C-alpha cells in the first residue's frame, strides 16, 4: 500500500495533527513502508475463526464523580466552573 503526501495530509486532518511539508513527505514514506509489511496479512488463511466476546458492562448506578476543584487544578484555562477555550463562532 502506497501512501502519497496528499493522502497523509488527509489522514493528518482526520487525526487533528499538524505537520509541515517535509514532515508529510517523511510520514508518507514511513507509512508506505510499514503498510507494505502489514499487507502480508492478505496471505493469511483465516478460516472462520470466531471473534472474541464482548466486554461486559457495569451496572448503570450513579456514583460521585471527580470533585470539581480537582478538575480545575489541571485545567489549562478555567473560569466560573468551566473550561475556557478560544472563540468557537466567528
Amino acid at each position: 500500500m502506497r501512501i502519497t503526501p496528499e493522502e497523509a495530509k488527509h489522514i493528518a486532518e482526520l487525526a487533528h495533527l499538524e505537520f509541515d511539508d517535509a514532515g508529510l513527505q517523511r510520514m508518507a514514506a514511513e507509512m508506505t513502508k510499514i503498510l507494505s509489511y502489514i499487507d502480508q496479512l492478505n496471505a493469511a488463511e483465516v478460516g472462520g475463526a470466531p471473534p472474541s466476546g464482548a466486554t461486559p458492562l457495569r451496572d448503570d448506578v450513579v456514583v460521585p464523580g471527580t470533585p470539581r476543584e480537582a478538575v480545575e487544578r489541571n485545567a489549562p484555562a478555567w473560569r466560573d466552573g468551566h473550561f475556557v477555550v478560544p472563540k468557537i463562532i466567528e
Partner: protein
Amino acid sequence: MNAVESLAAIERLNPRLNAFLRVNAAAVGGAPLAVKDNIVTTDMPTTCGSKILHGFTSPYDATVIVRLRKAGRTIIGKTNLDEFAMGSSTEHSAFGVTRNPWDISRVAGGSSGGSAAAVAARMVPAALGSETGGSVRQPAAFCGVVGLKPTYGRVSRWGLVAFASGLDQIGIVTSTARECAEVLGIIAGHDPNDSTSSPEPVDDYGADVDAGIKGLRFGVVREAVSKLEGDVRANFDDALRVLRGAGAIVEEASVPTIGYAIAIYYIVANAEASANLARFDGVRYGHRSKRARTVRDMYFESRGEGFGAEVKRRIMLGTFALSSGYYDAYYGRAQAVRARLRQDFAAAFQKFDFLLTPTTPEPAFKIGAKTEDPLSMYLSDIFTAPANLVGIPAIAVPSGFSGEGLPLSLQIMAPHFREKALFRAAGAFERETEYWRREPRAFL
C-alpha cells in the same frame, strides 16, 4: 531493602541510567516499589513520557496503587517509558533515554525500560510496568530480570493511561518469580471501575514456585524458533536442556499464524491508540499551545507541539486503518487473522501446559541503532506480541548471557489465568540456573 536504602541507590545510580523520572523523596517504610509513569498517582505528577501531559497530577490513585498502598508497599517513584508506552527502547521518551545497567551504551528496552533498569540495578526490588505488545517482557529480557504480563483482565487498568484498550495490561518486573507472584497477588482481581477486569478468583500465585516441573509438557513453537541464530539459538537450546533436566517433557509445537503477530498488532493497537489519544486536545489538562487563536488551531497545535514523532506515526497509522475505504481491508482483516491466531494457540494448549520461545530475537541493541527505522524497532516485539493479541499470560525469565555479556531471556506462555503455573515453571528454571543472582555491578 527499605525505602531509605532504595532512595540512596536511586540517588547514586539514576544520573547514569535515567530510570526514574521522579522520586518521592519523603518516602519511608518498607517494601519499596517503582511505578511506570503511565500509571496515575496523587502524590506525584504523571507524564506518560510526553510533553503533552505537562503539569498534570491525577486527582485519584490507580486501582493498583490503592491496593499496593493498602498492602504496605511504598511507592518510591515513577519510571521512564517510551511516550505513551509506544516503543521498544525508551528512546521515544520526551525526558531522555533510559540506559541498560549491563552496558550503558545500550537501550534498556521498552516501553517499560525505566522499570526494568531500576530492578536490574537493584534500585528497587520490584516495579510495575504496562504491556500492550511486550513492553514489560522485552525490557525485562534486555535487563536480565523477570517480567510478567498477566492474562488480559487479570489486573485492573483503572488509572493506567489507555494506549490500546483491547490489549493493555499492567505487568510486573522483579528479580525472581517468587517476588513477582507476591506482587501479582496484591494487584490482581476484579475492579468495578474496569469492566474488562475479570471476576475469576485470585490464586495463591506463589504456592507452586518450589513444586518442580517433572512431567509438565512444554511446547517449543516451531514457527517462531526456526530462524534463530547465534547466541540466542545456543542459549535457547541450553534452556530446553535445563527444562528436560528438571524432568519436563519438551516437544515441538505449532502455531501456524504466529508470524503475523506484528502485522496484526500494528493495525489493532494503533487503531485503538488513535481513538484513545484523541482526548489529548489541550482543553481539560496538559499542554495547550500558546499560538492558538481558534479552537481548531488549539487542537492541531497543542497536539503538534505536545506529541513526539513515534506517537504521531502511530496515530496516523491507526487513523488510516479506521478510515473510510480502508477499515475492512486493514482493521477488519487484522481482527480476522487475530481470531485465527487465538484459535491456533488454543489448539497448541490442547497438547501442552506451556509454550516456549526466546523473549526477544536479539539482546539489547545500541542506543540509536533502530530509531531511524521504525519497522526494525517494531520487530523487536516479534515473540512477545502474540501473547497480548491472544490475551494469555507470559513470563520472561533470565536464561543466561550472550558472548558480549548481555542478558538473554526465555519466554514461557500459559493458557488464560494460569499465572500460578507460570510461576511454577519460572521458579523451577531459576533454581536450576540461578542467573537471577548475577548483578550488573561491574558495569555501574
